[in-house]
C-alpha cells in the first residue's frame, strides 16, 4: 500500500523534503526529463529502502506534448507513422526501453502503450501482447508492469469494466499501472457517476484477481480508488490541478497551472487564496488534517504575516503531504471515506446556504454527490 510521486516538471526538489518521505516510490516521467536529468534524480534516490522506481515511457502523449521524449533512445522516430501491429517494431522499441531503464536505474518498467482512436477489445488485447514482448526482453533485468490505458467513457458502460479487466488480467505481470483517460476539463474533479463506478469496478476486479493496481495521475479521487481497493496511487505536484486528460495538453503552459491552490479535506476541493481567506474568516470549516499539515500551517502563517507573498511551492507540498497522509489513513481504515463524503456534502450545503461562494464558478462541491453515488453503487454496476 502506498503513495507514489509522479515526477513531473521540475519536481526533483520535492524528493528530499523530509515531510514528504512517506512516498513509497516514484514514477519517472521522461516527457519532463532527458536521460541525464533523470539519472540525477535516480542517483539521489539510491539507498532508500522499500522504495520503488517506476519508469513510464509515455508513448500515449500526443504530438503536441512530447517534451523531452525525443531525447530518449527508445522513443521511435516513426511513432506517428509506424505499423503498430508489427511485433518487430515493438520488440525494437522494448529492447531500447529496457536498456534506457537499466541506465537510469528504474526497478519497474511500465509497458509502452499508444493512445488509440477507439478503445476496443483488440486494443486492450494488444496492450497485453506488447507487455509480453517487453517482459520477454526484460526477463534478465527486472520487473515490468502492465500498463492499462483505459477510457473513462468506455468504462461508463455497465459490465465493460469486467470485460476490460478480463483482458488486462491475461498479463504475466503482477502489477497493473492504470491510466484513466478522459475528457474532463482541467482543474475539475471527475463527476460522471457511471465513469467513476466503472473505474472503481475495474480496480476492484483487477485487485480481486490478485493484481496490484497502481492508479497513475490520481488527484483527490485517490479516496475513491483506495476504496475500490487500489494498492497504490500516484500523483504529482500539478495533478492537484491537471490530471491526465487529452484536454490538458491544449492548455496554455502559462495558464492557471501556475496559481497556488490549497487542498481542503473538509470540502475535498482545491481552493484559491481568496477562498482560503474566506474560509478562515468564517472559521470552523478547515479540517483537522489541514490544520495539522505542516505546509498548511506555513501557508496560513504566511498569509497572515506577509500578505501578498508567493506560496506556489508550499501549495505543492501541502497537497502532496495531504495525499501521502490520506492514502495512509484510508489504507489503515482510520478514515471512513463514506462518512467523510457525507459530512463534506453537508458542509458544502451549509456554505452555500450562508452565501460563502468559491471564486471559481464550478468549484461548488457538486461532484461529491457523484462520488457518494459511485461509492454506494459501484459494486452492483
Amino acid at each position, binding site marked *: 500500500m502506498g503513495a507514489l510521486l509522479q515526477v513531473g516538471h521540475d519536481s526533483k526538489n520535492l524528493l528530499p523534503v523530509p515531510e514528504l518521505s512517506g512516498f513509497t516510490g516514484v514514477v519517472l516521467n521522461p516527457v519532463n526529463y532527458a536521460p541525464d536529468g533523470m539519472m540525477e534524480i535516480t542517483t539521489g534516490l539510491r539507498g532508500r529502502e522499500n522504495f520503488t522506481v517506476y519508469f513510464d515511457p509515455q508513448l500515449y502523449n500526443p504530438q503536441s506534448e512530447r517534451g523531452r521524449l525525443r531525447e530518449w533512445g527508445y522513443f521511435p522516430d516513426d511513432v506517428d507513422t509506424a505499423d503498430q501491429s508489427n511485433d518487430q517494431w515493438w520488440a525494437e522499441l522494448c529492447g531500447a526501453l529496457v536498456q534506457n531503464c537499466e541506465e537510469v536505474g528504474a526497478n519497474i518498467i511500465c509497458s509502452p502503450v499508444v493512445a488509440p482512436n477507439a478503445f476496443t*477489445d*483488440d486494443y*486492450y*488485447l494488444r496492450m497485453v501482447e506488447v507487455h509480453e514482448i517487453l517482459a520477454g526482453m526484460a526477463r534478465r533485468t527486472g520487473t515490468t508492469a502492465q500498463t492499462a490505458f483505459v477510457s473513462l467513457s468506455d468504462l461508463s458502460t455497465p*459490465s465493460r469494466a*469486467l*470485460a476490460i*479487466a*478480463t*483482458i488486462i*488480467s*491475461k498479463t504475466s505481470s503482477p502489477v497493473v499501472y492504470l491510466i484513466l483517460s478522459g475528457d474532463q476539463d482541467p482543474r475539475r474533479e471527475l463527476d460522471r457517476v457511471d465513469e467513476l463506478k466503472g473505474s472503481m469496478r475495474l480496480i476492484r*476486479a*483487477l485487485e*480481486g*484477481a*490478485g*493484481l496490484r493496481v497502481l492508479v497513475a495521475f490520481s488527484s483527490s479521487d485517490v479516496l475513491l480508488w483506495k476504496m475500490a481497493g487500489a494498492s497504490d496511487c500516484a500523483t504529482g505536484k500539478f495533478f492537484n490541478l491537471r490530471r491526465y486528460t487529452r484536454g490538458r495538453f491544449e492548455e496554455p503552459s502559462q495558464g492557471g497551472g501556475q496559481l497556488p491552490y490549497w487542498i481542503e479535506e473538509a470540502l475535498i476541493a482545491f481552493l484559491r487564496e481568496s477562498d482560503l481567506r474566506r474560509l478562515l474568516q468564517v472559521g470552523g470549516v478547515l479540517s483537522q488534517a489541514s490544520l495539522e499539515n505542516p505546509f498548511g500551517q506555513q501557508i496560513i502563517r504566511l498569509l497572515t504575516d506577509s500578505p501578498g507573498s508567493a506560496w506556489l511551492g508550499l501549495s505543492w507540498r501541502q497537497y502532496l503531504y495531504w495525499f501521502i497522509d490520506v492514502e495512509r489513513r484510508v489504507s489503515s481504515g482510520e478514515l471512513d471515506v463514506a462518512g467523510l463524503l457525507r459530512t463534506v456534502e453537508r458542509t458544502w450545503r451549509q456554505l452555500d446556504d450562508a452565501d460563502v461562494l468559491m471564486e471559481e464558478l464550478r468549484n461548488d462541491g457538486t461532484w461529491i454527490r457523484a462520488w457518494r453515488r459511485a461509492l454506494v453503487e459501484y459494486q452492483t454496476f
Partner: protein
Amino acid sequence: MPIPLKIVAQQICVNLALTFDGKVGAGTFKETFKAISADASPRALKVFRPGFSPERTAREIDAMKTCDHPNIGKLESVSRCDYQGTAFLFAIEEFIPGGTLSDRLRSRGSLTPDETYNAGCELISAVAHIAERRLVHRDIKPDNILLRADGQTPVLVDFGLVRNLEMESLTQTWAQRGPGTPLFSPPEQLNNEKAYIDWRSDQFSLGVTLSIAGLGLHPYGNVATPIEVIEAVAQRKAPTAIFPAAAGRAGLPVLRKMVAPWPIERFRTPGELISAWRDQRG
C-alpha cells in the same frame, strides 16, 4: 456416397497388423475404433473425415503432440491411409478402457464428494498442463473424459476444438456462437467473444462438469431445460440459489469461483486454482 470410416479403419488395421475390435465413439470430425496390437494391448484408432476442416485437425494433432500428462490422452502416431483414391488421416492413441464419465454417471449416479474432489485434482492438473502450452481445450465435458481401468482416474481426450492462443483463431468473428458444447461452455464461448477466451474458459467448463458429476446439477439451472440454462450462461446471469449451497455442503466451495460469469472473476492462474482446490479440503 461417402466411404464409411469403419471400412477405412478395418483397412488400416490390416495395414498395421492390428486386430479390429469395433467402434467406440464418434464425433463431428472423426470416429474412434478399438484395435488390438500384436502384443495384445489395445489401442484407440481415430479416423478423420477427409477434407473436414483440415486446419482444425492439424491443430488437434499438434496440441496432443505437445501434451504429456497422465490425465491427458496420449497420441502415439499420426499417418495417412489411401483408400479407393481418398487419403484418410488417422491417429493411434492409447486406449482408455473405463468408458466415459458420462457412462459412469448414467450407470452409477453422481460421484461422491471425495470422488469429485479427487477427479478435480487430476483434471485441474491436466487443464494446467494444457494452459502452460497456451492451449485452450474448449470442449471439456463428461463425454470427453474417459476413465482408466480403475474406473476412477480421469483422462481428458478429444482436442478437436482446441484453440492455440499463439495462432489466429479459426472461428469467424461474425459467428453468433463459438465452437463448443453449449451446456458446458462459458459465456465468452457462447457469445463468440474471442478476446476473453483463455485457460479460464476451460476452468469454467471443468467447473460445470464437476458440478454435474458431483452435485448432480448445473450451476445455472436445470439440465432438463438446457436451452434456458444456456441462455442464462450466455447472458451472464447469476448461478441458481441452490448451487452455492450444494457446493458448500459437498465441501467444494471452489466450484463457485470456477464458474463465475466473467473470466476475471474466476481463478487467474492455474496455480491459484490448484492451491484453492487443495485448500478447500484443508
